[in-house]
């Protein structure tokens, strides 16, 4: 048999398998059941709360965790690159600890264990304490990204700045950190997307009604409202998450491509 004939047969076989699976699913799945349980009539009542409370709070928690996490990450990254051995140790221990733990454990610690142990009232209540937990985790992850970015700035840049009369601090502020950020914009945007999804972990800590984020709001609708008893509100939340995250992941891909071309 000729090679081209072989290739046609193999591809034809793959298409045949795919067609078989699609037909099997179309016939065997009870679509009425799927529709009843995941996209019931009455879902229109949910959108208002899902978007105005859920999406809004998800956005707020994401932005706060990202901003504070980034500040923490910058501090950790600079400590990790410090000349002082003890600073390097502290940063390493912190980063390894909070990257090694499940984020949920950290959030639960901050939301429940720490407030009870130290009689501590976090700003924003349990939700605020949970966000602080998320900041601690996000800081650890972004610290490694930032460290890589800082190290990717050529050594000659530091030397050029130093030989022009900048102190080590001025060199970082004016020359190194701005260039490092330009390098890490794509991975940092990626961290932002991960953080949007990780805010759903905050649904576990139980917040006041107006403070609930998207996953939490959609969980409420599992047992109340016109779609109660079905997975509809979860499907709605999933759709909303995708509407936010998909454009951002496309943006990351575009930024990476542009940066590769610039090099």
């Amino acid at each position, binding site marked *: 048999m000729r090679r081209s004939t072989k290739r046609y047969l193999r591809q034809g076989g793959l298409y045949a398998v795919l067609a078989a699976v699609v037909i099997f699913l179309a016939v065997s799945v009870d679509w009425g059941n799927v529709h009843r349980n995941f996209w019931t009539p009455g879902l229109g009542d949910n959108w208002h709360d899902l978007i105005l409370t859920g999406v809004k709070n998800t956005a707020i928690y994401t932005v706060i965790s990202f901003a504070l996490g980034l500040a923490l990450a910058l501090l950790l990254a600079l400590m990790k690159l410090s000349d002082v051995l003890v600073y390097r140790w502290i940063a390493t221990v912190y980063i390894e600890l909070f990257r090694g733990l499940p984020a949920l454990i950290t959030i639960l610690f901050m939301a429940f264990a720490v407030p009870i142990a130290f009689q501590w009232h976090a700003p924003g209540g349990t939700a605020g304490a949970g966000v602080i937990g998320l900041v601690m985790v996000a800081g650890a992850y972004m610290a490694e990204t930032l460290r890589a970015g800082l190290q990717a700035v050529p050594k*000659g840049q530091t*030397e050029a700045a*130093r*030989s*022009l*009369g*900048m102190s080590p601090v001025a060199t970082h502020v*004016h020359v190194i950190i701005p260039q490092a950020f330009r390098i890490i914009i794509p991975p940092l945007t990626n961290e932002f997307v991960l953080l949007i999804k990780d805010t759903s972990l905050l649904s576990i800590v139980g917040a006041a009604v107006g403070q609930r984020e998207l996953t939490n709001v959609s969980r409420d609708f599992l047992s109340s409202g016109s779609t109660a008893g079905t997975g509809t509100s979860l499907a709605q939340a999933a759709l909303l998450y995708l509407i936010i995250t998909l454009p951002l992941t496309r943006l990351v891909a575009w930024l990476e491509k542009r940066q590769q071309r610039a090099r």
Partner: protein
Amino acid sequence: MPLLEVHGLCVNYGHIEAIRDISFTVEQGTITTLIGANGAGKTTTLKTISGLRTVRAGTIIFDGKDITNLPPYERVKLGLSQSPEGRGVFPGMTVRENLDMGAFVRKDTKTPAYQEDLERVYALFPRLEERAKQVAGTMSGGEQQMVAMGRALMARPKLVLLDEPSMGLAPKLIAQIFSIIDEIKAQGTTVLLVEQNAAQALKRADSAHILETGEIVRSGTGTELAADGSVKAAYLGGDV
């Protein structure tokens, strides 16, 4: 009194001796050049003078002051600035912002003195005035070299250290860069020049030193060394 005196300078990279017992002086208002092959220690010598390398032994006296252990920014304040090898411009900043970074120690971008320096640099490099708003990273090699040199001059140095300003440039641009170096000297700034382009460097050097594997092996005026048979053979590509 010489503007710069280097006595018995030794610098190590780990256990490797990069430069060994180097001594030379730079007189006020002259061009002094260090020439030699790759890895001879030319750049290390410059970086040590500007404070980027730690001295193992020896002293550096600048303008009558011992600067051996001063941090780099203190040296810039005293009047010593460097145009780094491979240009080292800040690629994300515009030409003008790069020049402002050169005036960093003076912190006075509003004063007449700053304006005067900016005009002086623009007069030396008219190209930089035309391209003031261009992002430096997008410029050609020759233009980036001009940015690096102009930036070093913005510190209003008594002594400017130029590290291989002709590296990687087309012959026509090399001639232009060297005539600018002559002009810098004519304006009263002392120049310490490190070069692999020995012919051009020796032609205008008031004094010259040849480095080999971290040591000065020959010294003399530029014309003396340019006429010397062994120097010709080794560095100028001529026949003995």
